[in-house]
């Protein structure tokens, strides 16, 4: 059964790209009426590979199929004067306008914040860019890997002797998108029904920096770069260990986790010397400790260590592939993946909203929109544009 979600009274015009679409996805999951406004040729993110069935097609991009669920979709060429008029009519009906264009582009079309505010003083505009709306790099070009590198996050990934490795997704962009979604909610809440709007300026580089926690302050203060598995601060408490059929991660933060680790290893004689109970000592002797651990862990399976460790209250987890995560009992029991039907792709399992709300339940209301799927509903039914005008706009390529 589909439900409306807590934000169903709000309308969001979504002109975003990779820097914003995850944020509007969360808001759509929370029930907002998010309308993707795409160029009549389709948004470029529809062509990000791979494709469902590996068939390149405007409706089959997995990226598009994930990030635009629960959103409606219309086409509009905002570089035409007719398109600009229609966009402004839509802005009158909307609470939020999200965009990721180069700074200055919308102003050049007379669609900047000051123009939209004239049409609707309550509008909250979120502009998400690589570098932000100010500063010497404002007009620089950007890319997912550029934002990730400039955020400082890449120096902290992978083996120190190899080239820095980017994340397997556009992670700094995703951080920007969730900060934008958060800012939008803050502004909506503060605005109420009658207040004034806001212009939100999000820079992907800065959003990425927020991901350095908790190492930012040690790094800016001491210049230390926490490396990977061999980083001494972890004191063998935060390492990845090879086991019989894969790897496990142990993250022991507090004294009782150390007690649990001793018990898990089950060889009290190994740690008879009380010096091991001192975290600083363990940190200094991390290499020795790791060798002692390895010997024990290598003969046990991921699942065995997961269950046995957790029974002792030790934060230990298997290192899984995406497929193993999908198939794991916890994921299944929470119904995180839910069936969704798409007109062209058919039915598939979709990773739903990462939270459950008992008062205003969330649901998958619709799959990602086909190109221009909601043109009729929105242009004729909601805006009241008559058939002749619509045909005229179609023939001119505006929609």
């Amino acid at each position: 059964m589909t439900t409306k979600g807590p934000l169903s009274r709000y309308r969001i015009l979504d002109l975003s790209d990779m820097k914003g679409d995850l944020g509007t996805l969360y808001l759509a999951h929370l029930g907002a009426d998010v309308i993707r406004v795409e160029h009549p040729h389709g948004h470029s993110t529809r062509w990000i590979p791979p494709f469902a069935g590996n068939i390149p097609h405007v409706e089959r991009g997995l990226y598009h199929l994930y990030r635009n669920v629960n959103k409606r979709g219309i086409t509009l060429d905002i570089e035409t004067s007719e398109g600009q008029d229609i966009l402004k009519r839509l802005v009158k009906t909307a609470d939020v306008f999200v965009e990721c264009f180069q700074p200055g582009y919308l102003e050049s079309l007379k669609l900047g914040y000051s123009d939209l505010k004239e049409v609707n003083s309550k509008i909250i505009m979120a502009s998400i860019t690589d570098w932000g709306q100010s500063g010497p790099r404002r007009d620089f070009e950007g890319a997912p890997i550029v934002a990730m590198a400039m955020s400082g996050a890449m120096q902290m990934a992978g083996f120190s002797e190899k080239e820095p490795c980017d994340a397997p997704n556009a992670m700094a962009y995703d951080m920007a998108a969730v900060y934008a979604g958060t800012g939008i909610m803050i502004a909506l809440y503060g605005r109420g029904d009658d207040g004034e709007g806001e212009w939100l300026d999000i820079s992907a580089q800065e959003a990425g920096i927020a991901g350095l926690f908790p190492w930012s302050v040690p790094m800016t203060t001491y210049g230390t770069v926490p490396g990977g598995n061999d980083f001494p601060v972890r004191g063998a408490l935060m390492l990845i260990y090879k086991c019989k059929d894969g790897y496990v991660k142990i993250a022991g933060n507090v004294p009782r986790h150390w007690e649990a680790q001793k018990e898990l290893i089950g060889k009290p004689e190994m740690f008879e010397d009380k010096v091991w109970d001192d975290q600083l000592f363990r940190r200094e002797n991390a290499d020795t400790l790791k060798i002692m651990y390895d010997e024990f862990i290598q003969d046990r399976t991921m699942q065995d260590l997961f269950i046995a460790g957790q029974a002792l209250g030790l934060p230990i987890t298997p290192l899984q592939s995406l497929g193993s995560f999908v198939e794991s009992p916890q994921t299944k029991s929470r119904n995180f993946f839910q069936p969704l039907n798409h007109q062209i792709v058919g039915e598939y399992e979709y990773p739903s909203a990462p939270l459950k709300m008992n008062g205003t339940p969330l649901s998958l209301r619709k799959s990602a929109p086909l190109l221009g799927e909601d043109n009729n509903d929105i242009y004729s039914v909601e805006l009241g544009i008559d058939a002749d005008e619509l045909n005229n706009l179609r023939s001119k390529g505006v929609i």
Partner: protein
Amino acid sequence: MSLPLEGIRVAHLGQGAVIPELCRVMAEFGADVIKIESQVYPDFMRRPGRLDGELNLNNSPGYNEANRNVRSFAANLRSEEGLSIVRDLVKVSDVVAENNRAYVTRSWGLDYDSVKEFNSKIVYISSNGFGHGGPAGEFAAFGPNLAPYLGLVYLWGHPNDEYPMGATINHPDHIAGKVGVMAVLAALDHRNRTGEGQFIDMSQAEAGASMLGERFLEYTINGNDPKPRGNEVDYAAPHGVYPCKGDDRWCVISIMTDQHWVSLCEAMSREDWKKDVELINLNGRLNRRDELNQEITKWTIDLEPEQVMEILQSYRVPSGYVQNSQDHIADVHLKSRGGYVELDHPVAGLKLYPGNPIRFSRTKAIIGRAPLIGEHTYDVCRDVLGISDSEIERLTELKSIGY
């Protein structure tokens, strides 16, 4: 000027990263966040704090970053009177936010079912590693556990790595904190209109997984379990990390469009590439990416990373470099936008902290230092709970509060 979240009171029972971050973002925009902690049961993020080699709960950089602008109310949850006073605080709060293991709040009588009995309009967010219910619902996990658990570490690496290492940072935590703010504010908006509170159950593993959604569809739609590919992507070529002059210095370049390609050829004075018909579109460049990457490396290796960025950006080619914190401190762009802010703290002293990336045209975030443990106990007792000075004194002597 009033802040957008003024008037919201949050009883903060969280620790670590996810819920503190949720609370910090709300506090920086005006919510009154009261963090309940004590020396008996300190936030584990306080534990790395050291001063002159000794444990000092007020000097943990992680804590002092994650808990900016909140008030610290020291109440001993292991004493009956401490618990009772925390219940009183929850009674007059709009939000409870917590990320303890599932049974912990139950043991305090502060789980959602208990709280709604005395505060029916409460918006209660509970975020644990694996989400409530299910076989792992009460398991323990920190951010560093969840990235491996949900598949992120497996995928984040080079194909020929000795083993999957991932990164030292925990983006799943940071996604979860913000998704939590969105959900809490949506629930408060609903409550303001209907009078109905509710329970929000947020799984940190699922929050992390939700930023890899399209990668999961490779498995659920195409039946292909993704493998690590290092810095290789299918939407851009050439694309990647290239070594520069200096020790451990790297630039990044990403050619996503045919126009970027022409610009790169011009910036590198490669007329031969520009004329090569095989390279005018992405597919052709993907087929020859190894060769292109080798040639680009020959060019970048003698340049400083900043130089590569300046040259390429002057031709409008997407590029940058792998910055470290020293680069950040020196970065004039970040400086001009307040990317980092300097905060003074009675124990930690003057330090640089990342700013709040949410920049509004009218409303500015208030970025204040993190509290000392128990710093606001008296204020909260008097101003929020209306407890008399003599009673505060009595409870303090019992170490039920203020310790």
